[in-house]
């Protein structure tokens, strides 16, 4: 098969760029730990309310400006442990999100942050984020879950 000289250069350049790109992505993932949420811990989806920590959703302080936020999603609600669905965290706090669903697949997206994961029945989803700016972030569902899908929300408020 004959290839035009320019085409060889073009493909060589393209393939080299691709390789560099994949290596960068790989180093970021496996050396720097920037992995997508892949917790792979399971639980019984019908016994969520009886399984720790989901038997007691909400914010817990676990260290110096470090928190764990446990959230139980269900159609069409996020149980974040407060009645007004507002969770306040201090600026600079590191929060470990811990979430699951009691029924169908839901999304777990905190607008304006990189917290974005799928909640699937039987699995626990986890992700950690540090909040360095004050303000309100809306937690919302970005996977279709039924007629009330667009009504699921809560607020994470980062306070000074």
């Amino acid at each position: 098969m004959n290839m035009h000289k320019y085409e060889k250069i073009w493909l060589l350049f393209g393939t080299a760029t691709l390789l560099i790109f994949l290596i960068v992505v790989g180093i970021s993932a496996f050396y720097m730990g920037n992995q997508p949420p892949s917790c792979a811990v399971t639980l019984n989806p019908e016994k969520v309310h009886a399984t720790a920590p989901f038997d007691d959703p909400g914010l817990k302080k676990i260290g110096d400006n470090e928190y764990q936020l446990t959230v139980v999603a269900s159609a069409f609600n996020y149980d974040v442990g407060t009645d007004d669905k507002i969770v306040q965290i201090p600026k600079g706090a590191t929060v470990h999100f811990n979430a699951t669903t009691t029924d169908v697949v839901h999304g777990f997206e905190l607008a304006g942050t990189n917290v974005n994961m799928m909640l699937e029945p039987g699995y626990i989803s986890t992700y950690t984020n540090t909040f360095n700016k004050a303000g309100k972030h809306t937690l919302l569902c970005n996977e279709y879950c039924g007629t009330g899908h667009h009504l699921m929300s809560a607020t994470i408020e980062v306070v000074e």
Partner: protein
Amino acid sequence: MMKVMKGIHSADAKLTMAHMYVAFFALLIGATAGLMQTLVRSGKVTLPAGIGYYQILTLHGVVLGLVLTTFFILGFLVATQSKTAGKYSSGERKWAWAGFWMMTAGVVTTATFILLNEASVLYTFYAPLKAHPGFYIGLALVIIGSWFVGFVIFHRHARWRKENRGERTPLLSYMAVITMLMWQIATLGVAATVLLQFLPWSLGFTETIDVLVSRTLFWYFGHPLVYFWLLPAYMAWYAIIPKIVGGKIFSDSLARLSFILLLLFSIPVGFHHQLTEPGIDPFWKYLQVVLTFLVVIPSLMTAFSLFATFEARGRELGAKGLFGWLKKMPWKDVRFLAPFIGMVWFIPGGAGGIINASNQMNQVVHNTIWVTGHFHLTAATSVILTFFGIAYWLIPSMTGRKLTAKMNKWGIIQTIVWSVGMAIMSGAMHWQGLLGGPRRSAYSEYAGNADTASWGAYQIAQAIGGSILFIGMIIMLVIFVNLAFFAPKGKEEFPIAVVGETSGTTPKVLENWKLWIGVTVALILFAYTIPFIDIIQNAPPGSKGFRLW
């Protein structure tokens, strides 16, 4: 009476047209639903008569993503196969008709249950949302029917090889085989989940369903699905557009090689749609990300070939300099303009795809309306404008009519209207997605915070774009009806380009199907076996069904 002059054997032309009627009817229904979605999302309109947003969104996804595309593609492949490999035997034609009627019956069944509000589960039908069994039965019929048509395409190709031993097969016939091979191998996944998981579960034979297994099987199919839309567009770009511009195919062997690479790297990559899911090991996610990106190589080959063809033709016509060819292209010929604009849209579309698949960056855009903006560029613009570009000559060529200067002009207007509408709608979707706006969502004010409130303006822009697109759809349908029923009788060219002198010989190995199917299967097993065993072994208790609409 004038003799009807069709581009292919008239019994085959009838078969193609049957597919086209369904495809363009789907366009009417789907784009109307699309307009309503954008209007609802603007916050200014509510749907009448108790129709649900997610009901019409399910309709939109099924009718455009699955019906329009599959029917158009099969009709187009049936025609190119008949044109390049020769007419079908009457036996082949019967099987193809059986496939067509099965698919059509499937579409009617599925659509009925969506309209009855028994299946508002969206076109991805993620478990454990449980639709009426009729919804899944209809989908299964569409898939199985498409296999019949696919086997007819394979059979015609094999027959050509027997009749012409040792000769190089026609390029378009070869490409049709690769396209259908990809489809048949990929649909095994969705057929497995529908027939073995969803159907028994929705009929009540099984109590629970393994959600992650069903999602993994779905996405094993879902990514090659988008390449199944793209390959017929590539067929036109490689082997038809050169003829329309008056040039030749740049290289027969490179065209075949790029199709082989697309086959290999389109299937073992479904995890890139599942990057943010909890149940899959990050190593295997990354591995499939690497395989995903290997399609960059055939994509670069394609871009090179296309522009080489244009430039060579431009120089033949006396163009000078790097971009001189641009002045020599037949801009006023809609058969060229529409697919060319489609190609141009593929540049930002492809760039967006690179972002989506980038392991970590995916988390920024996953399930935001950015993704919807992305595939309205790639599928609903690049691919669809190319399909429209094909329709302008294929329909009259099948019905023994002519594309008139007037319809050509309307086609040019259609291309511009669609591009403008999509630029506005898709642009606003991309932007809103970057700000976090979710996809698959009716209008909502959420908790009333400032972040979500800032999305309103983008949703209004989407409604403006959607309205322009709706007009574009109407123009297209008028052209279609004209070309199918009213245009003057005559012989419209069925353009097939020939290979250029510089193309060189084509290595025999490219036609060694045992080898390529073997490599495809090996790659799939490599990418899926271990994680799939993992998923099954570590599975949580299954889920019972929910009806939440």
